[in-house]
């Protein structure tokens, strides 16, 4: 029988640094909750709002797969590998931090906030050569389908990472439902609702709720109203 865990939006950690407001689904920096450390290989899910003209100064990372999904606005990225790029809504950015990388992320639009998801996964290999990539998401608003944006396969749709994980974005019209089939035994799925209401395995989820499900091969997702959500399939043991 499938196992599940529900993380209501209002139970997330909150960090308010003035220039950054961060809603944290799992323990991160100053937010520590021993019951909210990770969901399998998914270790960080931060729902961040960066004030216009502000951002994260240069700081390091190592041994982590770091995925950023802008929801509104844009961020200017610079890193120690020489990459300089702007990432905006409709794109996805990935960094394999490996042996170590320094980077900064700034909201270059002085007048508007940048909203983005910052997602960290434990890698399946430590100490890889750091890498950076960003792509424009194709079919990004195709309705009532799972749109793959990340996988472990360089030749598959979306960006790739050093982990047996698959991410899909979904934009469902009200009353539409689909079955999500897991790619790999032993994986679980964490669903994060970006907008609207959905039902998963009989559980109603609202905007910014998170829901984990594992020990199953497949499950149904139904949109109660029009809804947008992110489906993250990750190994539960890694």
């Amino acid at each position, binding site marked *: 029988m499938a196992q599940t865990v529900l993380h209501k939006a209002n139970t997330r950690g909150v960090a308010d640094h003035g220039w950054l407001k961060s809603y944290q689904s799992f323990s991160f920096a*100053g937010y520590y909750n021993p019951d909210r450390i990770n969901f399998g290989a998914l270790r960080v899910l931060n729902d961040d709002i960066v004030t216009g003209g502000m951002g994260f100064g240069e*700081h390091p990372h*190592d041994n982590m797969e770091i995925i950023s999904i802008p929801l509104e606005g844009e961020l200017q990225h610079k890193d120690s590998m020489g990459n300089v790029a702007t990432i905006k809504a409709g794109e996805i950015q990935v960094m394999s*931090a490996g042996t170590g990388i320094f980077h900064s992320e700034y909201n270059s639009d002085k007048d508007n906030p940048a909203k983005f998801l910052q997602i960290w996964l434990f890698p399946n290999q430590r100490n890889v050569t750091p890498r950076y990539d960003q792509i424009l998401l194709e079919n990004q608003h195709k309705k009532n389908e799972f749109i793959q944006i990340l996988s472990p396969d360089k030749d598959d749709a979306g960006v790739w990472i050093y982990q047996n994980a698959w991410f899909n974005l979904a934009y469902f019209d009200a009353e539409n439902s689909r079955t999500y089939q897991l790619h790999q035994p032993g994986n679980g799925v964490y669903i994060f609702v970006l907008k609207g209401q959905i039902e998963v395995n009989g559980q109603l989820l609202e905007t910014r709720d998170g829901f984990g499900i594992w020990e199953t091969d497949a499950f149904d997702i139904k949109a109660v109203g029009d809804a947008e959500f992110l489906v993250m399939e990750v190994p539960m043991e890694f």
Partner: protein
Amino acid sequence: MSLIQILIIGSNPPIMETIERLINREGIWKATIAFSNDDALEKLHSTNFKMVLLCAGIDQEKLFKEKLLKLYPNLPVITHYGGGSGLLFAEIYQAIL
């Protein structure tokens, strides 16, 4: 009150200095850096550490962790991920609380 001693092992100097600074900033912990496995063993021999963090770039990391766990069975040896403040404090809390 004496500070809780934490040994951090890794080969990337800027990242190790960042982790050292983040740990020491808390005022209750004291980080000591070892840049090599031999350096780590020497420091473990001379200081009573409360935990070890294995950071990026350690030679033969898996084997070295097994060696440490054999030599010091009561010492938490934690594999560090992230290279900054994001996961660091949860890793320490989980190991020593």
